[in-house]
């Protein structure tokens, strides 16, 4: 072994010789891996050779037009419900942190109510609400108003009821997630912003929320994946989404299991897409939190192909970011 001055050696000085030693053996790891591989092979073999699964039927219906319509409806409901949930949830979180006890109390009651009752109950409730309301009007509380409709069914259609049911319920969960994120931001950040003369809302929007996002994103990804599957509950009020569209078909051809596989494949496909999306969104908001961003899977692959050591991601400065002027 040669000792070299680490600072001045650079390229010219020889590297110390690598240590030669017999590596520790891990027989336990090999046994565990062996067991899992055998079990997995068994499962695949069963899935491929079992005629009851009828993969040809799965293939036949996977891109069936009514299934695709169901897929479309499921995606739409997920997006609407999550957008409602996130926007309303952040609003509720800010309300809960308000100094005004009525405002924070109202947010607390909302969360208590919507988190405390099952989604299916809320869905059916919104679906049935036109029967309870005689009319919908807009005006001064307890004062005069303008009638919007005397047939609430025309406004609260099935689809609106579904969006209300899923979105309002989601807002209660998102509110707690957002509140946790906001509370995770160091108090010094608010102080520094205040000292610069930033008003409270500006501080929230420009300083606190962007940093809270790091904590908010992972559970939100979770919620989105959960929502994708929760949309299957709306079949209870006769809205045909992915699950219901597979049920409609299996009700007529009795191919229950293959059509459940069709639904599962689609759900898995979209949760996979969401998982990848979440990775990149998290990476975006990690700017400034990590010294260097982790490489993307694509970068890792490229590095592996080139047999380079895995390089760190591009310099933080290269990542596009909303500049403070707008």
């Amino acid at each position: 072994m040669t000792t070299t001055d680490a600072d001045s050696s650079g390229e010219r000085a020889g590297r110390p010789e690598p240590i030669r030693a017999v590596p520790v053996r891990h027989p336990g790891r090999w046994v565990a891996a062996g067991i899992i591989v055998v079990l997995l092979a068994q499962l695949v073999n069963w899935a491929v050779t079992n005629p009851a699964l009828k993969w040809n039927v799965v293939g036949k219906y996977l891109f069936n037009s009514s299934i695709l319509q169901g897929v479309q409806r499921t995606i739409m409901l997920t997006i609407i419900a999550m957008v409602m949930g996130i926007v309303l949830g952040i609003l509720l979180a800010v309300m809960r942190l308000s100094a005004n006890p009525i405002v924070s109390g109202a947010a607390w009651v909302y969360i208590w109510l919507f988190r405390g009752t099952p989604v299916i109950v809320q869905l059916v409730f919104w679906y049935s609400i036109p029967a309870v309301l005689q009319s919908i009007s807009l005006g001064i509380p307890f004062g005069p108003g303008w009638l919007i409709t005397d047939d609430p069914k025309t406004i609260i259609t099935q689809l609106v009821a579904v969006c209300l049911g899923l979105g309002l319920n989601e807002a209660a969960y998102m509110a707690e997630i957002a509140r946790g994120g906001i509370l995770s931001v160091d108090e010094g950040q608010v102080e520094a912003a205040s000292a610069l003369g930033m008003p409270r809302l500006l501080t929230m929007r420009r300083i606190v929320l962007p940093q809270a996002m790091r904590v908010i994103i992972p559970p939100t990804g979770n919620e989105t994946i959960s929502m994708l599957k929760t949309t299957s509950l709306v079949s209870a009020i006769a809205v045909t989404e992915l699950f219901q569209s597979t049920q409609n078909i299996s009700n007529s051809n009795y191919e229950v299991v293959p059509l459940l596989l069709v639904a599962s494949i689609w759900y898995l496909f979209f949760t996979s897409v969401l998982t990848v999306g979440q990775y990149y969104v998290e990476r975006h908001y990690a700017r400034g939190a990590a010294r260097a961003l982790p490489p993307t899977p694509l970068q890792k692959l490229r590095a592996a192909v080139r047999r380079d050591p895995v390089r760190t991601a591009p310099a933080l400065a290269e990542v596009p970011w909303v500049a403070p002027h707008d």
Partner: protein
Amino acid sequence: MTDGPPLANHPMGRPADAIPMVEAVGVHKAYGRLEVLKGIDLRVERGAVLCLIGPSGSGKSTFLRCINHLEKIDGGALSVDGELVGYRQSGDRLYELKDREVCDKRAEIGMVFQRFNLFPHLSVLDNIVSGPVWVRKAPGPDSKERARQLLDRVGLADKVDAYPNQLSGGQQQRVAIARALAMDPKLMLFDEPTSALDPELVGDVLDVMRALADEGMTMIVVTHEIGFAREVGDTVVFMDGGVVVEQGDPTEVLTNPRHERTRSFLAKVL
């Protein structure tokens, strides 16, 4: 050492020059039952540098935070540039200022924190322009040009695109000073600016502060750097237990303290 406040860098001949930049009269502050400030009387002239020293828990930082209304005072009167902090007087009645008005006043006072408190999600440049662009609505390109000049001044011209956590503590604190200066403050507050730094990084930050003092900036510095207080301060104030124990010329207070408490404190830190 200067005897009086240096006024050379300020427009002369205006009556405003007679008004001190900061004036505290019997300032009280309590957290519940705990009285942190028990009647502080202080005056900081324009262009003067006042160093606040004292043991932790003596109320120095609290007093500093009262000056830009991060903390509300419970009694006494505190004014900056001749205007009350947090209140407006009309007749013999006090009116609390609206949030917006408090913000406008804070924007004129720069503050530097012990823990830097840079915005970690923004680049160094964006940290510095955040005040001018978001608070003052100044045009982006001009503010960026100004930010580059400020960064050059604190010796970090090459760190424009870096993010705060890629910088050392000393570099972060100098960016924080540049961020405060970007608002063209009439008064700078420093809350133990070097206490969180590795010893070898302290010097760079103090150099920047010294240069600022030489340019005539009015500064209040809470510090444990006795050397800095002696060299740069026009006045040194020793606080303990929520009261001002002793104040005066730095050489006087630091070498010939009149009070026993000042003496024992200095014996420990020097």
